[in-house]
Structure formats: structure tokens, C-alpha cells
């Protein structure tokens, strides 16, 4: 879609020609995604939700299939399905019949499988399956960029606003609850934020690799940070570096964009592992 035709923002008119180049579009989109995924990824790591994030990401393919079937916007479809899957998981967990781990295993693979089956049935639409699974930078449009930066600004604003209850609930839900914060609500909002990141990051890295963009930069940042806030910022920067490195590599060696970004993120992680761990040392205060 040619956004410039109806977009009311004058700034976009001036950037629009530059955004004609698919590589620039992918780069701008990727940087935006990394800036959002870094801080959110910290919570995924702290709360041990890696498999949870994976399950939501896998359900994105079902979202893709349903979007084509119902002819709705792709990102909206993916967001809705990912959000529904996470809420279903919350409700199923409360019934305490199957372990969270088993529930995740069931939802993760069944939603992916249903998505794949549905896509094959829909012979009237041509879908580049590999693109959805592993990312396709050619697919990034100007609309996607607007969505990433608009949605990303909202996500980051919410994250800043809810930082305290989210962090307190991560440390201890009962403590947060007793002191008047609402950890359950914070958890639901965190899930919705994750669903939206998955929806906007899907085209770039693909459903199978989105979680890596959440987890690897955060894990990289851990070794370089002294506070939770620092870790969030460093994770965002590490993600931006990985996106840039991965996309340039992908252009250079003609590799798929998603896997290239993940490989770049892994290289950064390994470099951080080699760096000495930032240690908080107890400071002894001499008695006076």
C-alpha cells in the first residue's frame, strides 16, 4: 500500500522516497522491533516465560491463516490469536489439571499445526510459508513501519507506566499484591504487550524465531547490567546491533533475514559471555 498518498504526517512525505528501498525499510522496521523487544524480553527472561513466548509466537501462524480466511489485517489477526492463546493458557492454568509445561507444549504445537493445515487448505491464496516461518525482509511495507513505530511507542509507554508494578510482581506477586499493586492485571497486560510485539515482529524474523529476539538480547544485557532498568536499555541496544548486523549479513550473503538476525544476536551474546561479568560487590562500611 502506498501510504504516502493518504498519510497526514508531513514528515513521512520526506522520508517516503528513502523508504522505497526494501533494505532501508527492513532496517528501520528491524531497529524499531529490537527497541521494543529488548525491554519486554527482559521480563520474559526474569519471569522464565521463554517457552510461553514461543507458544504465543507459534500461534501466530494460526493468526496468519485466519487473517487470510477472514480477510482482516494480518497484524491484527496475529495479535488477536496470540492474545487469545495466552489468555486461554491463563485460564487453563487456574484449573490445575495439567502442568503449565504440558499445556504450553500442547498449545504451542497444535496452534502451529492447525495454522499449517489451514494454510494448505486455502488453495485460493498464495502464501509464502517460508517467509512467515523464517522472516522475509522483502515483505516489510511502509504500513508495517508505521505500525511498528506507532504500536511500539504505545507498548514502550505502557511498559514505562507499568514498570513498577510489573517489576514488583516479578520479584514477588504476594508482596506486590499486599502493598496495593495489582500483579494479576500486570501479568495480563504483559501478555498483551508480548502478543503485540509478536504481531509486529513476525514479518521480519518469522514466527519460529521471534522469541530469540526477546531472549537473546536480554540474556546478553544481563552480564553488562547492574540494575533492571539498565538491563532493559542495554537489551534494546543489543537488539538493534543484532538487527543491523543480521540484515547487512543477510544482504551480503543472500541468507534469510530472520536466521541472520538471530545468528548476529547469538554472536553478541557469546561476546558478552567472554566479557567479565559485571559484579555487584558488597561494600563494607568501616565502623566510625
Amino acid at each position, binding site marked *: 500500500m502506498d501510504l504516502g498518498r493518504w498519510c497526514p504526517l508531513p514528515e513521512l512525505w520526506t522520508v517516503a522516497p528513502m523508504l522505497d528501498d526494501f533494505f532501508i525499510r527492513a532496517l528501520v522496521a528491524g531497529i524499531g522491533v529490537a527497541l521494543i523487544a529488548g525491554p519486554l524480553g527482559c521480563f520474559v*527472561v*526474569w*519471569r*522464565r516465560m521463554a517457552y510461553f513466548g514461543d507458544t504465543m509466537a507459534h500461534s501466530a501462524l494460526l493468526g496468519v491463516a485466519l487473517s487470510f480466511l477472514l480477510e482482516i489485517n494480518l497484524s491484527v489477526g496475529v495479535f488477536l490469536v496470540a492474545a487469545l492463546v495466552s489468555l486461554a493458557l491463563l485460564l487453563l492454568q487456574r484449573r490445575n489439571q495439567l502442568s503449565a509445561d504440558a499445556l504450553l507444549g500442547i498449545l504451542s504445537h497444535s496452534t502451529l499445526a492447525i495454522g499449517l493445515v489451514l494454510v494448505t487448505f486455502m488453495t485460493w491464496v498464495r502464501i509464502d510459508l517460508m517467509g512467515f516461518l523464517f522472516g522475509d525482509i522483502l515483505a516489510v511495507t511502509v504500513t508495517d513501519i508505521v505500525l511498528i513505530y506507532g504500536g511500539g511507542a504505545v507498548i514502550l509507554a505502557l511498559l514505562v507506566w507499568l514498570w*513498577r508494578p510489573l*517489576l*514488583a510482581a*516479578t*520479584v*514477588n506477586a*504476594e*508482596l*506486590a*499484591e*499486599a*502493598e*496495593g*499493586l495489582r500483579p494479576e492485571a500486570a501479568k495480563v497486560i504483559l501478555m498483551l504487550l508480548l502478543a503485540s510485539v509478536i504481531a509486529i515482529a513476525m514479518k521480519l524474523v518469522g514466527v519460529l524465531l521471534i522469541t530469540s529476539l526477546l531472549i537473546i538480547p*536480554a*540474556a546478553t544485557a*544481563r552480564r553488562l*547490567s*547492574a*540494575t*533492571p532498568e*539498565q*538491563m532493559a536499555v542495554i537489551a534494546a541496544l543489543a537488539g538493534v546491533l543484532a538487527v543491523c548486523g543480521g540484515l547487512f549479513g543477510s544482504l551480503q550473503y543472500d541468507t534469510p533475514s530472520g536466521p541472520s538476525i538471530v545468528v548476529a544476536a547469538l554472536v553478541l551474546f557469546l561476546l558478552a559471555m567472554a566479557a567479565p561479568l*559485571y*559484579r*555487584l*560487590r*558488597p*561494600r*563494607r*562500611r568501616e*565502623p566510625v
Partner: protein
Amino acid sequence: MKIGIASRTGQQSMDARASHQTVVELQGAGVRREGRWLVRGVDLVVRRGEIVTLIGPNGSGKSTTAKLVTGVLRPDAGQVDRLPGLTVGYVPQQLFIDWTLPLSVRRLLTLTGNHPAAAVDVALAAVGIAHLAGASVQQLSGGEFQRALLARAMIRRPDLLVLDEPVQGVDFSGEVALYELIKQVRDETGCAVLLISHDLHVVMAETDTVVCLNGHVCCRGTPELVARSPEYLQLFGARAAATLAIYQHHHDHTHLPDGQVRAADGRLDLADAHQHEGHAHG
């Protein structure tokens, strides 16, 4: 500040506690989940400057009752009256913080509210771990961590301090020191204290009221009274009652975690502290 607490409190606490204002009152409160009463008919009054200890076996409704007091749960029966704008300080049990979360003791204290650095230092000094301000919480020992959590709750200047099994995973001398600290906090701030404990062997002597729960209030009163009551003996058995030791202050000094020794009158023995510098404490 470190030194001031014990000596200064006398005057302050008298003023702060003068009112003995009721902070939370439960009247016949009950919580029902899936057709089963978790607790029922609980009457409980928590007043400023008083320590209430909830004891009872696992599943007796201690946590549920505490949640009624803090307002996390609403009663399905009876009534809960809480002071409007009540500030709660909460010390959770068995807190595990994932290694991936970089959290210093200093940052832990501002987890649920903003507090100036000076206030953080004062709170940490008050619980005797000022020297650990920059340490990561994952490096602390059980006793140090409980002190940090207590400082975190205290810095909020709570009207009500709720402690869930505060001495779990702390050795005996640490246990005694922690109970002493809780008493000091109560004396200095005049806040109400609600202690939850399944540890029947040590109940604070300063506890004004022990409430023994088993789905309902099975008995209540001063620690001595509860220990002798037939309901208590029936619930926990004579053997448990025989080992129930009510902690009293008979020692004349306390070892602070930074190696200093504090005499019973609150003074610090500095010579001793310097002696400690050279060896195992370092």
C-alpha cells in the same frame, strides 16, 4: 541512626502508640472457595503498636486471614474494616529472585515506591546491613536477606507491617536477632504488626495476642495463655506444647551482621568491632 534506635525509641513510641488505634478489624470474616470455607468466623483486631501472631498448621487459613487483613481478599462472610488509606509493609516468605534479575539491596528498597537515597541508607542501617547496600540480593545469606526485606517494608513507614514466616531459613541466633528487630520497628514506628508463623517452637514474647487458627479461631490470648489452652494442646499435641519456647530477652548483647557487637542498652562496642576486622568476619 544505627545506634539511635534502641535508646531513642522510648519517648517516640509512647507518643506513636498512645492511641492504640485500631488499624484493621475482622468480624466473623470468612473466605469461601469452590464450596469450601478456607477460614470462617474469624474475629481479629489489629491495633497500632501491637503485635498479633497467627499460628496454625498448614492449610489452617493463616495466609487467607492475612490476605483479608491486607485487603487482597474480600470476605465472603462477615465484615472487614480497614483504616482508610492504610499503608501496608509486607515481608514475604521464601522469596526466590531469579539470577537473571540484576537487583541490588538498594534497588530492592525502592521496589514499590520512591524513596530518597538517604532514607534507604537509614533503613538499611536500622536493620544492620548498611554495608550491603550495593550487594546483589542473590548474594545475601538467609538472615541478611530477611533484614533487607524488613528494611524494604519499613521504609514505606507502614501503618501495618505483615510478616509471613519471617525467620524461615534463618539460624537460631539470627532468629532471635530478627525478632528483636521486629520489636524495635514496632517500638520506633508504632505500627501494627501481624506475624504469620507455623513455627510453634518460638513465639515472640512481645506478641500481644496469639491467634491460633485451624479453619476458624481455635484459641487466642497471650502466648503463655495459648500454650496452656486445651484447644491448643488438642490441635498440636502435648509434645509440641512441651517444646513451645516463648522467647525472652535474657542475653546482654547482640552480634550485628557487620561484626559489631551491640550491648543491650543499644550502645555499640566499637573496640570489639575493630578486633573483628582482621579475621573470619572480613
